[in-house]
């Protein structure tokens, strides 16, 4: 093998940019993507379009038989913008997402760094960390409800017995405590995935960089700041983006723990969507809230990717 024959080789990334070098379109990347796109589209395309269309109609199930589903334009959107619960849900959704993602990230980073050590039995620890994630949502919720129970829960019991608190804390029954409890349970349930990703990311940081830092006399903190964190930049972004999207629309945890209560305190947009659809039977309004959720998530994802993503530095 001697002379490289492929004209598509560059020294600089992207190395397979056929479009610039050749006149005809390179189909391979599209072909690679096509099956996945088809699979996703086949299942989700119709529902996504449906949701948008329904949000523009009056679709209150008990009245459909008599009045049908007339087109009402943006009336549903106007109605929800006038409802204080909607804005409250929006605000709490933001708080919930940010709180959970930040907590989850810090915890995952800590756990990933601890797991990065080489010692006997680390395989077991790595597998143990997955347990919160491996437990089905229903079970996790029941266990947490049990732990948080105001009268029979072990959390209050321990805190009372050790004198940390004097009166039982209404973990799920007072608006503010419920918000906290819901965030805590979410972090617990969702962090393993992030920890695994960060661990794999830590694996990808070249050892030479740490050795170079040592040579330069860096402290442990210095190593962390100048080697670990930058090395984890893209993985961290990925973790924050994916868990952010997931948590923003995470329904099961909140619904099972508090059903959006007490009152409307822990209602997020998705919980409200569910309640509008399955409790109030107003599909039109539910779809409107759903579309709003989609738009918000979209904007944030776009911003995050646009301004956060860095091309991987090549050695």
């Amino acid at each position: 093998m001697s002379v490289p024959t492929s004209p598509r080789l560059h020294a600089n990334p992207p190395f397979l940019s056929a479009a610039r070098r050749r006149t005809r379109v390179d189909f391979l990347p599209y072909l690679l993507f096509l099956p996945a796109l088809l699979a996703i589209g086949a299942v989700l395309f119709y529902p996504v379009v449906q949701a948008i269309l329904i949000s523009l109609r009056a679709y209150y199930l008990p009245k459909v038989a008599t009045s049908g589903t007339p087109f009402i334009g943006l009336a549903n959107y106007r109605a929800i913008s006038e409802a204080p619960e909607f804005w409250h849900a929006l605000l709490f959704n933001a708080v919930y997402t940010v709180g959970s993602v930040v907590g989850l990230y810090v915890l995952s980073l800590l756990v990933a760094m601890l797991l990065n050590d080489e010692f006997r039995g680390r395989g077991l620890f790595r597998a143990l960390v997955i347990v919160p994630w491996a437990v089905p949502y229903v079970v996790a919720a029941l266990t947490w409800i049990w732990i948080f129970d105001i009268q029979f829960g072990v959390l209050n019991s321990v805190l009372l017995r050790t004198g940390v608190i004097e009166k039982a804390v209404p973990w799920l029954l007072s608006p503010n405590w419920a918000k906290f409890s819901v965030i805590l349970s979410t972090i617990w349930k969702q962090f393993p995935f992030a920890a695994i990703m960060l661990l794999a990311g830590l694996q990808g940081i070249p050892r030479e960089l740490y050795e170079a830092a040592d040579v330069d006399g860096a402290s442990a903190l210095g190593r962390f700041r100048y080697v670990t964190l930058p090395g984890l930049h893209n993985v961290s972004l990925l973790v924050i983006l994916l868990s952010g999207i997931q948590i923003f629309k995470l329904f099961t945890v909140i619904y099972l723990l508090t059903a959006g209560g007490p009152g409307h305190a822990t209602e997020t947009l998705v919980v409200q969507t569910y309640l509008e659809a399955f409790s109030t039977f107003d599909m039109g309004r539910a779809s409107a809230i759903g579309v709003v959720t989609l738009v918000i998530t979209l904007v944030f994802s776009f911003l995050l990717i646009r301004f956060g993503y860095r091309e991987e530095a090549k050695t």
Partner: protein
Amino acid sequence: MRGRTRSRRGPTIARTFRIALLAVVTGLLLFPFYWTLLTSLQPRGAIYKTHPSLLPEAFRWQSYLEIFQLRPFDLWLQNSLLIAAGTTALSMALGIPAAYSLARFAYQGKRSLGMVVLITQMLPASLIVVPIYLAFLRFGLLESKIGVILAHASMTLPYAIWMLRGFFETIPMEVLEAAMVDGCSRLRAMLRISLPLAVPGIVGAGLYVFETSWNEYLFARTFISRGENMVVSVGISTFIGEYTVFWHQIMAAAVISALPAFIIFFVFQRFLVQGLSSGAVKG
């Protein structure tokens, strides 16, 4: 050389401290699960106490037997396993090429494609379940494992693609270019070079898909009603009766339902942290 675990770095004291810290953190994190386990061992009347004991007071193992006797729990485990495995296979088969496409090529609409798949995930599940139900009804996909696999794959593919893309991007260009110099076609370069190097990413994404499918509740319960296709995540909630909750049974079921996922993870976790095969790239 990349990514070996930092073994024997720093003084042993620091390392012992780190391991101890890990043990403590893990212990705290696993407490809720410990509590689940504890509750599953209690006899029926002992559940409601203002100051429950932190240590097991009873070892009533019968709950674990009861759940298999009272329900076709083994069938549920089997179904969940089949569906999760099917979803993982499908998501990996479709996701790997798609992720590779996003990571290693530059072409028109690349960014949009990446965003489009992610956008499909931004609608609340509770909203799309009804239209999907309708579509599945029309195509005869209800009451079948295939339908659930398809639904789960549509939920997990976008995340899998983005995760895999991230890992594909960390593979240095030089490796692929070296292969191309040696006369590899692009596809062969992908298959023979990139994939093996991305094993940690692939395993990670695969585990994510498996876990998500295993735990998924909403679609499974909506698309399946007949007993023969029932899965664990939905079946467990049948222990929550109309008038009473069979706590010790539900907790026993919980412990068992977490096991397969845990075991699979335990088996595969070493691939997650395996470094690149030595000698792939020179310095």
